């Protein structure tokens, strides 16, 4: 998987979750990434609020204590470095979610437009599960998931079927 598919810091499914259906398994991963993104964004917000507060107070502080004001600004650099790292992480998460949305739009548009029958809900859910499995689950997540739930239904259904990709 590429960096875009691997938001940093993601930890895999919560170990205390009971086995559930495919929908729950998928929402586990998405919700966890969304929650992680929220945490990173909150840290960026903290630094921005500090910067904003310092900027608004800066003229008064600088007039009375120019050296102290400069020292406080310098002290903020470490926080800004950290905020920059957190912002980069947020950007990776956003790219990850954007990719998921684009691929899901593609999966949902399969069939029904050119005479092909629209797949039933279960088949569509299998396709989306396969897409997440193939593209977005990290190795450790795959291991945990297959240990607990087995391989995706779409993989089992494909056993013995014609190959999905064939070059002539």
């Amino acid at each position, binding site marked *: *998987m590429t960096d875009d598919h691997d938001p940093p810091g993601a930890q895999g499914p919560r170990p205390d979750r009971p086995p559930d259906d495919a929908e729950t398994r998928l929402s586990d991963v998405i919700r966890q990434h969304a929650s992680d993104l929220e945490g990173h964004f909150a840290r960026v917000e903290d630094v921005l609020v500090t910067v904003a507060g310092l900027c608004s107070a800066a003229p008064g502080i600088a007039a009375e204590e120019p050296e102290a004001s400069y020292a406080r600004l310098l002290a903020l650099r470490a926080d800004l470095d950290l905020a920059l790292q957190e912002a980069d992480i947020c950007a990776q998460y956003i790219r990850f979610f954007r*990719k998921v949305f*684009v*691929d899901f*739009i*593609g*999966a*949902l*548009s*399969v*069939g029904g*437009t*050119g*005479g*092909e029958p629209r*797949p039933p809900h279960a088949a569509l859910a299998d*396709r989306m599960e*396969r*897409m997440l499995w*193939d*593209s977005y689950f990290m190795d450790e997540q795959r291991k945990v998931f297959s240990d607990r739930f087995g391989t995706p239904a779409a993989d089992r259904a494909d056993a013995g*079927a*014609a190959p*999905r*990709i*064939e*070059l*002539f």
Partner: protein
Amino acid sequence: MKEILIVDDSRTMLASIEEILSSNGFKVASAMSADEAMARFRDGLRPALMITDLNMPGKNGIELIADVRKLPRQRFMPILMLTTESKQDLRQQAKEAGATGWIVKPVNETSLMQVIEQILP
């Protein structure tokens, strides 16, 4: 920059594949029917690869491939069929019409790019 023509009657499918191809450094042209694709060729489009849906209003993907193969400049252009169909007889028809490969939807970015890397020198 290599150009790839995508033919699909679904706007969302076109958008999805365009996103994958353009983010991997390809120039993308698109058409929503076999007729539109043929018009693009007549207008001088010379893609390195064509990816086409099978079931479309009007001519289907296999008929499009047969028409494209009659164009002298497109005789050797790789053509991939990207479809929900997986029946062997349809694959055989596509192969006989001149398709280079068959991909069952949905396809993820990694798999699609692996196939393209194999067929585009």
